[in-house]
């Protein structure tokens, strides 16, 4: 009885070990199963998901106009103080003074890509961009101004 148990153990053990070796051996001889993506070689064909949250961007149209009214809803919504909005008083053609955006400062180094600012924005001025290669040599380069120089508020956005 002892011998039967002894050799039974050996048989079961070797069987289980060989099962495992069969699987790894299968993958060794089937290179088609390889999952590696060769980044950055595949950069040209790499497509991120359209909702991917890479960074906050402010789209501008052909006339260099954006939709940001400077309401600061995003600044309040941001949990980390990533966004700072500096506003200025602008004199409209009809003579009225109106609050307009001067600089939209975005600290990429503080951002956690939580999307709360985009959700909070009432005029869809900011969206999430798909770029993800953010590494730079100097921390200062991560502080970005989102509104382009000389840009204006789009007509009809209040």
């Amino acid at each position, binding site marked *: 009885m002892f011998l039967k148990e002894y050799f039974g153990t050996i048989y079961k053990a070797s069987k289980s070990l060989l*099962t495992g070796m069969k699987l790894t051996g299968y993958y060794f001889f089937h290179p088609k199963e390889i*999952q590696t993506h060769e980044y950055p070689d595949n950069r040209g064909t790499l497509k991120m*998901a359209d909702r991917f949250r890479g960074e906050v961007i402010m789209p501008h149209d052909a006339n260099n106009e954006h939709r940001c009214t400077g309401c600061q809803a995003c600044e309040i919504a941001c949990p980390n103080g990533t966004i700072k909005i500096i506003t200025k008083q602008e004199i409209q053609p009809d003579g009225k003074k109106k609050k307009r955006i001067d600089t939209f400062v975005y600290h990429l180094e503080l951002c*956690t890509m939580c999307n*709360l600012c985009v959700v909070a924005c009432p005029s869809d001025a900011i969206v999430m961009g798909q770029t993800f290669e953010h590494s730079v040599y100097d921390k200062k380069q991560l502080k970005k101004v989102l509104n382009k120089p000389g840009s204006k508020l789009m007509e009809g956005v209040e």
Partner: protein
Amino acid sequence: MRLLGDDILTEEGEFIINMGPQHPSTHGVLHLKIWLEGETIKRVQPHLGYIHRSIEKMSESLSYRNFIFATSRMDYLSAHMNNEACALAVEQGLEVEVPQRAKVIRTLMAELTRLSSHQLWWGCTGLDLGAVTPFFYAFREREAIMSIMEETCGARLTQNYMVPGGVMADLHPDFQKHTKEVLTQIKDKLHEYDEVLSGNVIFEQRTKGVGFLSKEDAISYGCTGPMARASGVSCDIRKLKPYSAYDQVQFEEILDTGGDCYARYMVRMAEMKQSVSIIEQLIDNIPEGDFQAKTKNVIKLPKGEFYQRVETARGELGVYLVSDGAASPYRIKYRSPNFSNLSALPHMAKGAKIGDLVAIMATIDLVIPDIDR
């Protein structure tokens, strides 16, 4: 109370070894002080606090919409469930009815997260026991789930998809198709997990009878999740107090009476199958409708205390929220599963070998940031 100096005392033939805060198998910055006699462990003392980021205190200065994002960084492998727990607590205070569609989406996402979390755990268990290859097989399936997360939520790990009243955005149009593909892939590959690790004789020897935790001890240490269920404690919040859409699906609560590392392993392996079945039941029955209930721009909760708990991949996460009527919480306390689960480690590791300690830690499935918060 034990004085600090007492901890350093060793008896004849004992010596102290510090495992961590940098060590390959502590999965983070956990520091274990181990009293050894040869290879045998006499005592283990976990030292915490290396990754304390004060999430609870920080949340007191954030609004009810904003504090949710930080919980993704506690148990980063079940970020969805953490976010869901916070959202549920806020909704309890607001007394808002979450749309049916949002409930189903939450459940689907939570189960996908549980699957991916268990897959990572499976890979890491293999890794901790010295088998490197399973890790990559686990990541193959996990990667597919992560792509679904990326597609619908916009992020892979710290999704921040839950908002008070529902979810942040509607499902991606391809969500159902891709999820079904992933489910087929996972069901195809689950048998490989058994071939390469579960059935392996070395693995069985390393885990069977190692790190035994009795039912009584599991209860008194406050263990939850797969760890307690492996000791025979029925503690699945999804069954005991169904939230979201868990009352609409059929699934089993996996219980085992072994109480050792092998039982914990088997419970998680069976839970993966249950998660697949839950997703299968829901994926074709996502009701139409809103994905988010209307809430005010600035949320203010009535004065009072709110407590909600969910079942994360590691156990019970409780969110205790005190409101004084202002726009941000007065006090928040998270009852995190990993902290309680870790507290059973010194008990389980007593008398084990160093190799066993690694196996025990692997099957507790620790996520260190969740311990310190």
